[in-house]
């Protein structure tokens, strides 16, 4: 690397974090909030073995958006968001509903909902515009996100919803953690697991809908899955995993927004995902809970103990 490029990088990064430009501030706030909210909700999904439900919920927003547009006839943000939210909840609940009972694989249920809802969305969009490629720009933004276009009002909504989510998770922490660990047992204790399920799926839908503007439909799944998966290498306890996931999600958001500012053409969404992947790789290598290096060290110690003298 040329010596100059690091300097340029550092000065651009400093410029970004000095927050002298409003749009940089908004992008930063949006990305961090998305990282935090997804990191929190994603922890529960990953621990329940339902990581990809978030992916399906993301794709399931499309028909809701299209129907909201058909009904209202405008591109007003609140209506579209509400449509997205309703159809994301519907998609997530459909998954849990059809995975119950015999002859259904939970993973296939995710794929079925993902593709059918998205297909329906595509059909509705193509119906709205006679030519299926008419509104490519809007669709591309929806698919890939655009954090720079987030408005202060939207950030306010996201922050508020995020705060509500945190409070709710705090209040329902015990039943939620029980359900994540052992749903049958939770049921036997008389916990309303169906309502908890609905709550969790709604939280997921909220997280997905709030994130789409910043990271897009396809990469929402990444922010829901990667930070929690990395966090599992850092702690054996649920609160520890949750905190680590939230922190990594938030930091990924901040660094992603910064990278997107520094490098022209790099969108915030994919940049935060790659930062999160970097954290995941670190956790995989060095995480105290099952990371590759600690495991190798432990194995070596065990071998040395097995052979007194420690030769070899």
């Amino acid at each position: 690397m040329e010596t100059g490029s690091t300097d340029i990088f550092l000065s651009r990064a400093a410029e970004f974090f000095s927050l002298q430009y409003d749009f940089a501030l908004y992008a930063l706030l949006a990305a961090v909030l998305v990282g935090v909210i997804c990191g929190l909700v994603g922890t529960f999904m990953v621990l329940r073995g339902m990581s990809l439900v978030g992916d399906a919920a993301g794709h399931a927003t499309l028909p809701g958006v299209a129907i909201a547009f058909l009904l209202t006839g405008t591109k007003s943000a609140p209506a579209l968001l509400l449509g997205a939210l309703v159809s994301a909840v519907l998609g997530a609940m459909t998954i849990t509903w059809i995975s119950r009972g015999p002859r259904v694989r939970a993973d296939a249920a995710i794929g079925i909902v993902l593709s059918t809802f998205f297909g329906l969305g595509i059909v509705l969009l193509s119906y709205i515009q006679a030519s299926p490629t008419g509104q490519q720009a809007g669709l591309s933004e929806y698919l890939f996100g655009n954090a720079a276009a987030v408005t202060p009002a939207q950030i306010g909504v996201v922050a508020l919803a995020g705060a509500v989510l945190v409070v709710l998770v705090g209040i329902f922490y015990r039943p939620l953690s029980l359900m994540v660990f052992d749903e049958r047992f939770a049921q036997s204790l008389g916990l309303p697991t169906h309502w908890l399920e609905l709550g969790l799926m709604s939280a997921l839908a909220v997280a997905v809908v709030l994130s789409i503007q910043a990271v897009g439909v396809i990469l929402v799944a990444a922010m829901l899955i990667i930070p929690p998966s990395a966090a599992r290498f850092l702690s054996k306890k649920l609160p520890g995993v949750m905190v680590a996931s939230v922190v990594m999600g938030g930091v990924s958001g901040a660094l992603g927004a910064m990278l997107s500012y520094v490098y022209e053409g790099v969108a915030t969404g994919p940049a935060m995902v790659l930062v999160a992947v970097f954290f995941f790789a670190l956790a995989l290598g060095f995480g105290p809970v099952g990371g590759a290096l600690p495991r190798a060290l432990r194995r070596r110690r065990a071998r040395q103990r097995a052979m007194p003298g420690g030769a070899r």
Partner: protein
Amino acid sequence: MSAGDALTIQHLNLSYGAERVVEDVNVKLKPGSLVGIVGPNGAGKSTLIKAIAGAKEPDSGTITICGEEGRRGRRHLTYVPQRGEVDWDFPITAEEVVRQGRFAHVGLLRRFRGDDKAAVTDALQAVAMTALKHRQIGELSGGQQQRVFLARALAQGGEVFLMDEPFAGVDAATEKAIVEVLRALRDAGKTVVVVHHDLVTVSDYFDELVLLNRTIIAQGPTAEVFTPDNMRETYGGNLAIFDRRDAVAVVE
């Protein structure tokens, strides 16, 4: 090693990651024997079975089946996995499960001939499942499922039969039927190795025992090996032992 041994294990070490679960196991079994492997939970029974079946790579040591090692040796082996490990929703009928036993003989493309079909029919007959052969596997009771897997092993044939807890979760009638089949196999000169959990029936079922807890505690004819001292050593303190006049009864 005498050429006549059916299964020989020498200095076998097995581990998961850093943890050694089976240490220096040596076993020698003759044809025509019905052998129980007995030990507490976590003693390494399943790991040992996996290693014999080729699903677990040993750290060191050799496993010889009918005088041959590795993949060649495993051709003589017929393995009945634990019942819980398959998918009961799988679209497959009882008869088709039994037909899988012949895959070892027909390979990928050869058609089923008369002797293959006869082996399948006989195997279903031996476990009294002929009437239910068109049921989907998940529609059978636990005991019936276990019979089907035993029939698959019978259809496959082989010299050494390896069974992981065949009596887990089956009804009394099935347990009896399975024992009958195992005895018939022994009488036909086969070696039958069974991982077993129920200490009450041990002395009824098996001619020989291998007591395992990480390593071999004792092995030999059941009457000699199944003693209070040996059982105490195998199970540690977690065992109540009732010594009556003619038998040892043990409760885990």
